[in-house]
């Protein structure tokens, strides 16, 4: 629990990390090089947005959700508006659904690029990080072209989106996808199939499937352990049922099923699937007015809703309780990175300190979402 045996050493990793995980403090109890227990200390980024949201209106909560998972803001917004629209029973126009899916998937690619690049940086490969960030910059440029913001968008509103797509967005996006798809081969040659990288990550930090489900691990982490669960396919929301895409799961490609390499490889495959969805959406997007279904006053009926959506990190759930006023009664965000971090202790017992960094990087956490 917290009792240190005689020959154990307590080491501190953090709170400032050289990699962009955020402000996290890990108290590691080691016996020489081997880790015997880890106690994570959270709360450095805790802003208690759940208390704030009890004092502002429902639309004003959306910028708060941006700032929780700042690397996948579109998906955080998406989760909230899907939950609210289920509570208020609003049907949004078709064009809005397509725009939301396009933005969500672009943000998914951006978030995965950052996660994979930073993971390479943790392992010691400096160059793939810069290549992946260069491509992510083009995605952020597209977001800036649409809504004016690069990182925190406040784009998806309850009943619609804030700005319509610019006229030549489809050309720009298709050009980007045509440029980006061959780049994935370059990343694979540089990092994914590099023997040193494989040695550092294969067989390390295996999460068995039942442990993963019990710890509430979801998203790419769960799929890497072999469980084929994706909210977009299993509890579909928006128009994801119209698209044809696969759910990549881990296969123990270079080591055991559910190791760090599988988690890395599943994210790489998911980028390809997102490209597929984007191409289909860009072809089929209808025209229309995006501000048509915006309600004049947001006053949901009394009741509660729990709805989850698929963010790049896993199942993002919103539990919203409304008491009939324009101000929410309770907004609770179930963040996927919170549950992913909770299994760090059990998974890294018996590994070395360098492996703890590898495991932490493969879980892809964002402290903004964990601390809220």
């Amino acid at each position, binding site marked *: 629990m917290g009792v240190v045996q005689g020959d154990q050493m307590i080491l501190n990793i953090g709170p400032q990390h050289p990699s962009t995980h955020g402000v996290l403090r890990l108290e590691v109890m080691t016996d020489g090089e081997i880790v015997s227990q880890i106690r994570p200390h959270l*709360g450095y980024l805790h802003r*208690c947005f759940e208390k704030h949201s009890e004092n502002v209106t429902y639309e004003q909560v959306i910028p708060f959700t941006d700032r929780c998972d700042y690397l996948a803001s579109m998906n955080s917004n998406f989760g909230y508006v899907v939950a609210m629209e289920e509570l208020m029973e609003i049907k949004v126009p078709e064009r809005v659904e397509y725009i939301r899916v396009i933005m969500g998937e672009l943000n998914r690619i951006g978030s995965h690029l950052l996660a994979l690049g930073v993971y390479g940086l943790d392992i010691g490969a400096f160059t793939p990080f810069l290549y992946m960030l260069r491509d992510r910059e083009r995605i952020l440029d597209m977001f800036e072209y649409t809504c004016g913001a690069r990182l925190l968008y406040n784009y998806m509103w309850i009943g619609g989106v804030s700005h319509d797509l610019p006229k030549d967005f489809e050309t720009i996006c298709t050009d980007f996808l045509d440029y980006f798809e061959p780049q994935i081969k370059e990343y694979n040659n540089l990092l994914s199939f590099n023997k040193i990288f494989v040695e550092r990550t294969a067989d390390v930090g295996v999460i068995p499937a039942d442990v993963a489900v019990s710890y509430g691990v979801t998203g790419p982490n769960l799929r890497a352990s072999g469980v084929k669960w994706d909210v977009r396919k299993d509890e579909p929301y928006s128009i994801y049922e119209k698209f044809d895409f696969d759910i990549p799961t881990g296969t123990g490609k270079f080591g055991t099923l559910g190791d760090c390499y599988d988690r890395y490889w599943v994210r790489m495959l998911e980028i390809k699937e997102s490209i597929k969805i984007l191409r289909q959406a860009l072809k089929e997007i209808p025209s229309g007015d995006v501000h048509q279904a915006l309600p004049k006053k947001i006053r949901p009926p009394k*009741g509660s809703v729990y709805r989850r959506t698929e963010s790049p990190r896993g199942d993002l759930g919103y*539990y919203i309780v409304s008491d009939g006023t324009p101000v929410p009664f309770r907004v609770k965000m179930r963040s996927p990175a*919170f549950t992913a971090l909770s299994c760090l202790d059990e998974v890294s017992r018996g590994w070395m300190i360098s492996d703890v960094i590898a495991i932490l990087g493969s879980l892809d956490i964002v402290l903004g979402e964990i601390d809220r």
Partner: protein
Amino acid sequence: MTSAEIKAVIMDQFPGSVIESEDLAEKQVELKADQWFNIATFLKEDPNLAFDQLECITGIDLGEEASLQTRYNLHSMEYRHKIEILISHDRKEPKVASIEKIWRIGDWFERETYDMFGIVYEGHRDLRRILCPDDWEGWPLRKDYEGQESYHGIVVPKMKEEDGWE
């Protein structure tokens, strides 16, 4: 299985533990706190229910005169059915059995609800604050929460109704 069927199974196995109420939605079941640990074990291990995923634990303060509640959202990966369990607590001494041994994510979820509301989960191996600092006073998400004046010499700013932040 639908929520009504699951509710019937629970009422069958643990008579007297379900509290009927009209403001509950169809998927919500309110239980008494005393048998919660046994019911939770049953929900996980019964082969027809198989609720192996605890999606979310939400603490909620229903108002100054009313009670605190803990709401558990459960989901089964095998059967794809869901249920939401509500357990009310007395404001003076809120406590309920901890289910962190059954679903391991309960460990951190319960710590968070304890941190925000002060609900004590009995049997939890290490119930301490997770998001606020260890020596923070008060339960932030309660409706009657008054922030402390200062923390280790730093003044804690307060929010006013009309003017915004001080």
